[in-house]
């Protein structure tokens, strides 16, 4: 191989690797407060994440601090719902019998108190028996009032030390009324994740943190096309490799014949 060609090749690769981190860094800073929802298959809202069936596999995953409690947050969406999962690891003796996780949702990306009008709460009634209640509230002047219609779904489970809370919240639901935050595709909403140990809202909230969730504008009918294209390119590359392999093995066996002939 010519020395100059090799050098040019090395320079191109080095330049590439120097440029790529700049894109990664800029994205890294933006994900501290904001989470871009990912599109994927709807998970089963049962309070557990089944990794063997790739549940939550395509979700945006962030590790965040809820006060001093480290949580794993997963955000996923499909054509109809936004799915949020919160998971944390806590020694059994630190779990309260009536622990809860709530999502207090703003009507926009604003973090003003008045904008947080909707609350979805999964409240354990007895955590040792995994008994819970999913509730939907609307907030009026700081008071939590029961919604006429319970929108969305939620489930929670304590498995040894790990608590898993799963929420399903409708996006652009036809039943949306003034009691719920009107989530829409392509918009950003502020979510206040709250943790508490007594079922009194809002005074029972012990820890909370606000995050912004960007709901993608594209729906599942569009995105799989992109995913499919990438997958097809990937399959084409592997197929080309397979064909080249067959050809290469053919050449190797022909070479063996040639060597034998030369020996004779």
């Amino acid at each position: 191989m010519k020395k100059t060609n090799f050098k040019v090749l090395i320079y191109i690769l080095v330049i590439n690797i120097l440029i790529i981190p700049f894109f990664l860094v800029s994205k890294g800073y933006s994900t501290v407060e904001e989470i871009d929802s990912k599109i994927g298959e709807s998970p089963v809202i049962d309070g557990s994440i089944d990794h063997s069936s790739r549940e939550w596999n395509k979700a945006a995953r962030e590790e965040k601090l809820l006060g001093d409690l480290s949580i794993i947050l997963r955000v996923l969406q499909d054509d109809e719902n936004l799915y949020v999962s919160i998971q944390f690891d806590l020694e059994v003796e630190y779990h309260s019998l009536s622990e809860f996780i709530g999502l207090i949702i703003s009507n926009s990306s604003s973090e003003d108190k008045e904008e947080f009008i909707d609350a979805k709460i999964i409240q354990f009634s007895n955590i040792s028996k995994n008994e819970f209640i999913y509730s939907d509230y609307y907030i009026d002047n700081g008071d939590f009032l029961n919604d006429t219609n319970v929108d969305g779904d939620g489930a929670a489970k304590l498995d040894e030390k790990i608590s898993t809370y799963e929420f399903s919240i409708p996006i652009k639901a036809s039943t949306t009324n003034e009691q719920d935050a009107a989530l829409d595709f392509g918009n950003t909403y502020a979510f206040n994740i709250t943790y508490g140990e007594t079922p009194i809202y809002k005074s029972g909230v012990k820890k909370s943190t606000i995050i912004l969730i960007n709901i993608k504008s594209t729906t599942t009918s569009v995105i799989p096309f992109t995913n499919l294209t990438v997958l097809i390119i990937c399959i084409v590359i592997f197929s080309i490799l397979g064909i080249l392999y067959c050809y290469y093995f053919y050449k190797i066996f022909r070479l063996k014949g040639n060597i034998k002939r030369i020996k004779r």
Partner: protein
Amino acid sequence: MSKIPKQPEKKKKSKEKRQSDEEFAYKSVLISAILGCIFYIISIFFNIEIISVFMNINIFWTFIDISLKVIIILLFFLFMTTSIGNYKELIGKPLSWKELLLLIVLSIGQTILNPLVFVFTLFGLIIILIYLYVVQEM
């Protein structure tokens, strides 16, 4: 004693040595190609995400998942470079930059589904290329 009878013996020895070298090189071509093929098949399972049990569980498993994918591709590249290099040597030609570039493109192509695997594979390939260049120079 005359030295004349010794010459055919020397020639025979050198011929035998050359044949033995060729056989060794041929074995190296074949074994490296088979190993490259094994890593190519493993790569299909991991990089097309047929096996995705390690993905998105926590940082540790994500790290294991990315490391496995990158190592598999780099081993594929390393074995295939060795195999093609020896093959070329057997037919009396040097390994050209076109073949090396094709191998790089096909290795990078396997990472298309995961940007992190792409970045780390690219980094690994650069290190391997620098290593091969230094070895060649020596």
